[in-house]
């Protein structure tokens, strides 16, 4: 078939041609008007408010700006600010009497009887992250990022890299990644010698902490609706891994903490962590169900299971609702204790940090995403309630400790607002 230039067009065809040309001319105006360039920038901001009842309040605004390129590359810059204030558990055990604890940061805190003793703190943390994504050949991409953050007594520097490859017509994606961090701990007042009475200090003012991590994952599209993935990671930390301000109580014979003496905590100089995670994304007509299970274990004796479920429900007018449920349980580190007997042998490592203790938590959350008329941005608001508790009545409780809840339940409330704009 060839267009033949010699045959004259019939009247019918000329009329069709004229009407078609008029249509294209009329449409060209609208096409040109609509031909604003595709979004080249994206701005995202979130503000997190976090309240741990009777303890810590954190406000964390985060802002990120991303430059998008037509070929699929992107570059982004993100700043984070944390303002933390409140009271953090010192590791001292609750007792039947009023306790006064002095802390390395120079503050004195007095706790009422029967409550987990805490020390007040204020801290600010700023972080800067920079990263980019580069697609390769339509089936692969590499991503890299750098991180710098600083707070009063802690500096962190590091970077991540990741490579992913699509196989089998984009049905399978294989990802390999790694990260390296070099952190420096400079506690206020110097670093107290671990597992000692807190009066002597280590010679250096700053100690390093190095973290290296490798991960690999594979995800597969099982059907038009369903994608699953499996990921594994291994992390090696070494350096100063102890919490410089936390202590372990020395317990008298009757179970009350000794008021005059304490023991600074001490943790091993290395930690090897492992995690395996299986996750699934299932698309219903408009909604999406996300489910994941993660198993974690490390050489400090901590093992944990996390089950996470989220259901993204599309609402009219492009709004959406995402209820969220997360269940978490963790076994205690080998060297976690609720206190050591006064006058007994000092173990090689010990901590009373509840975050290394036997704990469970349930999180219930709800996110609402919405847009406002005549405004191009997208908003989200999320509320989460976390209830965390542990075994506060261990068999090893001594004397009066048996009447006290050494690991009381804790409620945490978070509210996060988010905003995204593409322009």
């Amino acid at each position, binding site marked *: 078939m060839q267009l033949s230039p010699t045959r004259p067009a019939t009247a019918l065809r000329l009329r069709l041609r004229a009407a078609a040309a008029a*249509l*294209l001319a009329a449409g060209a105006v609208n096409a040109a008007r609509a031909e604003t360039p595709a979004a080249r920038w994206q701005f995202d901001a979130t503000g997190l408010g976090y309240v741990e009842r009777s303890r810590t309040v954190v406000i964390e605004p985060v802002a990120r700006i991303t430059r998008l390129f037509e070929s699929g590359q992107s570059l982004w810059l993100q700043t984070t600010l944390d303002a933390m204030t409140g009271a953090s558990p010192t590791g001292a055990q609750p007792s039947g009497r009023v306790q006064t604890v002095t802390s390395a940061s120079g503050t004195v805190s007095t706790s009422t009887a029967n409550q987990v003793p805490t020390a007040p703190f204020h801290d600010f943390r700023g972080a800067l992250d920079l990263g980019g994504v580069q697609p390769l050949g339509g089936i692969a991409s590499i991503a890299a990022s750098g991180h710098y953050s600083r707070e009063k007594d802690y500096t962190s520097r590091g970077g991540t890299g990741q490579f992913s490859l699509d196989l089998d017509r984009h049905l399978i994606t294989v990802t390999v990644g790694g990260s390296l961090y070099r952190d420096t701990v400079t506690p206020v007042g110097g670093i107290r010698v671990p597992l000692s009475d807190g009066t002597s200090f280590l010679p250096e003012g700053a100690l390093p902490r190095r973290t290296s991590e490798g991960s690999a994952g594979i995800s597969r599209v099982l059907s038009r609706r369903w994608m699953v993935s499996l990921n594994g990671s291994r992390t090696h930390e070494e350096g100063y891994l102890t919490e410089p301000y936390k202590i372990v109580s020395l317990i008298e014979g009757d179970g009350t903490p000794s008021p005059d003496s304490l023991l600074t905590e001490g943790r091993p100089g290395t930690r090897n962590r492992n995690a395996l995670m299986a996750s699934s994304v299932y698309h219903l007509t408009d909604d999406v169900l996300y489910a994941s299970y993660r198993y974690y274990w490390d050489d400090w004796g901590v093992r944990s299971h996390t089950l996470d479920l989220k259901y993204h429900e599309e609402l009219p007018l492009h709004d959406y609702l995402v209820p969220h449920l997360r269940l978490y349980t963790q076994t205690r580190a080998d060297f976690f204790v609720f206190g050591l007997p006064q006058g007994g042998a000092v173990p090689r490592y010990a901590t009373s940090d509840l975050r290394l203790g036997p704990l469970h938590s349930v999180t219930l959350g709800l996110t609402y995403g919405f847009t406002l008329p005549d405004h191009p941005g997208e908003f989200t608001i999320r509320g989460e309630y976390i209830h965390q508790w542990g075994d506060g009545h261990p068999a090893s409780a001594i004397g009066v400790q048996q009447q006290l809840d050494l690991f009381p339940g804790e409620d945490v409330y978070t509210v996060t607002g988010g905003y995204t704009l593409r322009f």
Partner: protein
Amino acid sequence: MSERAGEDPIRIERTGDLFAARFTAMASPCEVLLDTDVRAEAFALAGRARREALRIERKFSRYRTDSVVGRIHAARGRPVSVDDETAALLDLAALCHQLSQGRFDITSGVLRRAWVFDGGEHVPSPERIAEALVHVGWDKASWRRPVFTLPEGMEIDFGGLGKEYAVDGAAALLAAASRRAFLVNFGGDLFASGPRRDGEPWAVGVDDPEATGERVLYRVDLARGGLATSGDARRFVRWQGRRLGHLLDPRTGWPVEDAPRSVSVLAPTCLEAGMLSTLACLHGPGAAAFLEAQGAEYRIA
């Protein structure tokens, strides 16, 4: 951070010395072939073509309440003032109605509800047809530019023109943006801007409707122009031993008899090719004679 999933992306692949961009629009697989070595240029041009296809889809889709068609239906018989582009589209629809003696009619969609083309033997009763025909007929609507009045109960559907228009619209944008040769193919309606760099035409296979997606009826070497294919093969109903296709004649409410299974027409633009192939099909057994009389380049299967 936003949880919104991204829009259906453009997939770009290098095939030979061309870039092939694929995406979905107007419920059809769309493809843009670009005769360039520059990846960034291919991305930019494919993006433009897709945006124009989506613009036209969103503006004229009968499935959207925020489209021009949605507005006209929501007006329920009240007059609606339309813009220049919609007016030109209505002018074209009116012209096709006149040139086909009433066989082409954008108000005929309502008839679809009376018929079930599943290969079975069910045909609607005369009463059911008459009931549907009450709401069919371009002459019942009033089109006095720029005001269009569609009586309540009637519906319009630009489906017979929309894809070809989108092909020509996208092609116009690409031609303005680049000197590269390209081929735009939206769901089988296509336009080629000129021969490729090596002087060769584009090789187009016309689908065999009896084995859609699997077999090609014949190949067309297309250097320049629009190619549109219409046909009546896939959906049908049996009645009194005859096979009735799904192309309906709005004057009778019944399928057009003996419409060609597949007719492809080549014309300077995709719109012209599409209108000629549609009008030909509506002439039933007179399709070939119609196209001959118009001096058209065509193939009938």
